[in-house]
């Protein structure tokens, strides 16, 4: 198949589009409400539609995540061994957040470190994996609760 490239007219349309978006972003709320009314639209109804759209996106995203987790679990049970690893960076960031929020945990970890019982790399890996597993189980519980 022939590769499609942008024509000069397409580039003109892109530039008009960019300018139009700029004007929308620079418009006040009152102006945007006026624009909608001028088109015969009810701004409050539009707002309700966007709120509903965002809520639907959250639900759809949660369902998609659950489906993905289920598929991974099935693969793991089937011994396919191609389970996608958890997001190590995200888990670490979450762990650091929990530690920062919980002074008791931070203090215990500091004491453990002073006693020569600081976390080894393996300990940290294990904790991160446990955290990821707990997160998945939490997600499944939430979904089960909704059923």
């Amino acid at each position: 198949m022939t590769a499609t490239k942008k024509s000069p007219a397409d580039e003109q349309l892109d530039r008009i589009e960019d300018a139009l978006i700029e004007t929308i972003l620079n418009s006040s709320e009152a102006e945007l409400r006026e624009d909608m009314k001028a088109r015969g639209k009810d701004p409050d109804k539009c707002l309700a539609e966007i709120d509903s759209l965002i809520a639907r996106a959250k639900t759809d995203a949660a369902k998609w995540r659950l489906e993905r987790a289920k598929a991974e679990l099935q693969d793991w049970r089937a011994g396919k061994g191609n389970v996608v690893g958890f997001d190590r960076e995200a888990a670490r960031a979450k762990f650091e957040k929990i530690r920062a929020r919980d002074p008791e945990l931070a203090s215990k970890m500091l004491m453990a470190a002073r006693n020569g019982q600081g976390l080894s790399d393996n300990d940290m890996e294990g904790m991160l994996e446990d955290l990821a597993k707990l997160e998945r189980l939490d997600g499944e519980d939430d979904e089960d609760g909704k059923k």
Partner: protein
Amino acid sequence: MSQTGLVGSEPAPSGGFLDSEEIVAALDSLSVHDKFKLKEVEKVFLRGTDLSAGDLLHEAMCAVIVGDRKWPCGLAPMAFIIQTMRSLTSHKRAKHRRETADGGAAQDAADGAAVMFSAKASDPEQILIEQESEDTVSAIQGCFDGDEQAQMLVLGWSEGCRGKELRELVGVDQAALDYVIKRVRRAMLERYPHGWKKA
């Protein structure tokens, strides 16, 4: 940096990306004003896609929440959501262009229609695509028959003019230019409520 002044999803200077909780919190923090902007911007992005109103915004929101696109810490929600819509649109337009070109060329062959070849664009698929875009540019200009200022503004935009250059081209001061811009914005969103598709 794009022409709309929005940055791409490069990591913020401090590094790192928002986690799922932070993403949902950021979406919940959108103001009424932001939501109106998103609704209007979506209309512009629908051009050249086969999407309906609401579809693009929904898809962008899902991609953001699921984490298909990483949200750099410090990047404003509006910038990131609009950047995501732009990226999705870009892929969909390219796909739609290919499909339109394939379908159009096949239809011409089936109808036994003569396909014109020129030195400028010798590929029939490319001719169809260019014709559609040229028709759209002409139609936009045609929206403002009798309104010379509006026509000059659209012409300036199509050439990428802004600020002083645009004021000089339209021949008005900033206050008057703002008024022309408002007129053009309203007319275009009214004329093309679902993007600039060929009727």
